[in-house]
């Protein structure tokens, strides 16, 4: 990993966490509503995966604020979307769970568990058909690996040797149900083993995630076909804001937080990448300012007009089409 990339990853992880705390605060004050799924604790995975897989297309889940930002969307437009404002990345019509930006090859923001996987497979088909092997990365949780869409997708991706990276973020919980109570084993890569190359990494370590995904993408580009990477991680918050997190003991949470990806990577910055404390503080300050700016922007942004209600139901006015 290059020094600049390490700095970028730390910046985005720090910014991501600050962003999520601000989102939490503004959920409590009512500026943000609906379902809000915080990514605190999983920043390493969210940031490093996006930085490593920088070329292809990305499909992901509803816990995607940090991924969207790491993918290149400006924090203020993401925050504005959380606030439901017209200048949000989805015009205030998607909300926290539905961030879309095709200009960054980022297609949601899908809130149906496992629903985005077949879409990613289709997109990978399109890319291969177009002769583009940069590939597609689809991110999903351990919960999704128990559904039919997941198995259908493994099967089709392997049959057509599609350039797709399945990235499973295994935080062990499907809302409140531990993976061991929903599947016969903790390691979900075992489900993919018969179909494709698999790998498991520590998702709390940004460098490990980064290297694994970088390697995977280069394999895809050589025409390797589908790859499955499982990253073990831990979310520090409840599933969404309305989850009191009562199914995890304080001991488990303590154990979990001991693996906090931020101090781990900060240490790497100091020791491996030779950053000074001052340099790191400057990065943190810049991130804080960016989040502060995002909140101010979102607060002052305009609500969508009522006309927006009827906009984009359909793309085409029928009269314009000549068959």
């Amino acid at each position, binding site marked *: 990993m290059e020094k600049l990339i390490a700095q970028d990853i730390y910046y985005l992880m720090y910014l991501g966490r600050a962003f999520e705390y601000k989102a939490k605060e503004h959920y409590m004050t*009512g500026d943000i509503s609906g379902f809000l799924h915080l990514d605190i604790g999983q920043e390493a995975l969210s940031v490093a995966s996006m930085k490593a897989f920088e070329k292809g297309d990305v499909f992901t889940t509803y816990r995607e604020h940090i991924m969207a930002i790491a993918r290149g969307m400006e924090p203020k437009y993401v925050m504005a979307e959380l606030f439901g404002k017209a200048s949000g990345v989805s015009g205030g019509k998607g909300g926290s769970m539905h961030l879309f930006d095709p200009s960054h090859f980022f297609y949601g923001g899908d809130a149906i568990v496992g629903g985005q996987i077949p879409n990613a497979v289709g997109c990978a088909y399109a890319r291969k058909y177009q002769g583009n092997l940069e590939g597609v990365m689809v991110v999903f949780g351990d919960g999704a690996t128990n559904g039919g869409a997941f198995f259908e997708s493994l099967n089709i991706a392997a049959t057509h040797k599609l350039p797709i990276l399945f990235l499973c973020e295994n935080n062990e919980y499907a809302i409140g149900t531990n993976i061991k109570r929903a599947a016969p084993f903790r390691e979900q890569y075992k489900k993919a083993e018969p179909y494709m190359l698999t790998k498991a990494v520590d998702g709390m370590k940004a460098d490990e995630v980064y290297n694994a995904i970088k390697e995977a993408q280069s394999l895809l580009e050589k025409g390797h076909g589908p790859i499955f990477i499982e990253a073990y991680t831990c979310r520090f918050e409840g599933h969404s*804001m309305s989850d009191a997190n009562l199914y995890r003991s304080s001991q488990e949470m303590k154990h979990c937080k001991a693996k906090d990806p931020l101090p781990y990577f900060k240490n790497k910055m100091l020791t491996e990448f030779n950053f000074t404390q001052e340099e790191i503080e400057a990065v943190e300050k810049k991130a804080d300012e960016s989040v502060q700016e995002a909140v101010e922007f979102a607060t002052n942004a305009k609500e969508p007009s009522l006309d927006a209600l009827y906009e984009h139901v359909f793309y085409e006015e029928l009269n314009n089409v000549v068959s």
Partner: protein
Amino acid sequence: MVYNVVMPQLSDSMEEGKLIEWKKKVGESVKVGDVIAEVESDKAIMEVQTFHAGVIKELLVKEGSTVPVKTVIAKIESQDVVKGSQKSEQKPKEHSQEKKSVPEEKKEKTLKEPTKEAPHKEQPAEHKESAVAKELNVVPKSLEVPKESRISPKAKELVQEYKLDTKVLFKKYENETIHSQDVIEFIKERYFTPKALKVLNEYNIDIKEFQLDHKIDTEEINLFIHSHNLSKEVSLSSMQKAIIANVTASAQKPVYHIYESVDSRLLEKNKKHSITAWLVKIFAKVIMKYESFRSKVSDSKLLISPNANISVAVADEKNLYMPVIKGAQSLSIQEISQKLEEFKSKLHTTSFSSEEMSGGNFGISNLGMLGLERFDAMINRDESGIVAVGAITDSKLNITLTIDHSLINGYEAALFVKDLKKEMQNPQNFEEA
């Protein structure tokens, strides 16, 4: 700076929360992320963290009490004056200002809007009011439908629109369902004289075109028809349709014309019979000499008739028929005259049978008696030609032959005319047999 802690929204459906327990006391200092209270939402009991460091200044809600989301439940006095926290302290202030100002703005807007519009729309507004008031006065009382009657929504609408006397209407349709057509009939009977109604229907005029507050007579309708230049719609009779088809087909034929004058002295001498009758006789005779004048094309074969079958145009202002005198070459002039008389009488009584109208070889159309000097005619059906007979001038009868070139060529037609001229001067032809 003082930061307000509000009853947090902890789920998408939470509207109020119960304060279960305070985890901090007044005067205690807190740092970001510290739990200061436990709150019960509609889904679970959850911890309330603070996003600001400082000292608890006030706890405003008692344990066990329930307050709406966003109610201030505690105040935290912040101590540090670091830039970041200053910002965040200013922010809630801005924030609350913002919040207040938004509804204010809205209020202003809703208040302003009418006053803004008022100067522009003063008059229309008044108009509107009076129009509304008018409408209110005019709205008919809900229709009372007697038990023994039923009325469709559309019919009901019409009754109210025309403010009809429902007593009479329901009486007329007792024990029936009244449909819109029934109401229209009722309106027509009531507001139009029978004669006017006939014209109305003839011209297919909507009753909505008239102010229905008086009896409307033919004069008023005629006025309407003239001022709107309405065409009268008459559907075509089957005979008219047949004529259109016939002449349209005829117009496709490759024809040429021969303009001639024949000696008429013998015709003028023998006025006991009509010119048409004599011409039938003489044409029949000549036609018998020319096979092509008796031929027609059918299924890519030439059919040649053994007889001279002459069709004769019989017409008045409206109708035109071409009945056929069959085997005219063997009929006497009396018999021919009699046939023509029959045709004329049939014109006004019964229609011609298709048998009488078909099988002709050659046609005669005479308009000379109306003073027409010369005209040309269109060939009837699949006949070979037709002669258009004009007036006599200087002992000459003007005739124009229309000949189907696909059957008869010009040379043959010239021979035919030459023969015809000769026969017109032959006194034997004008003897009564």
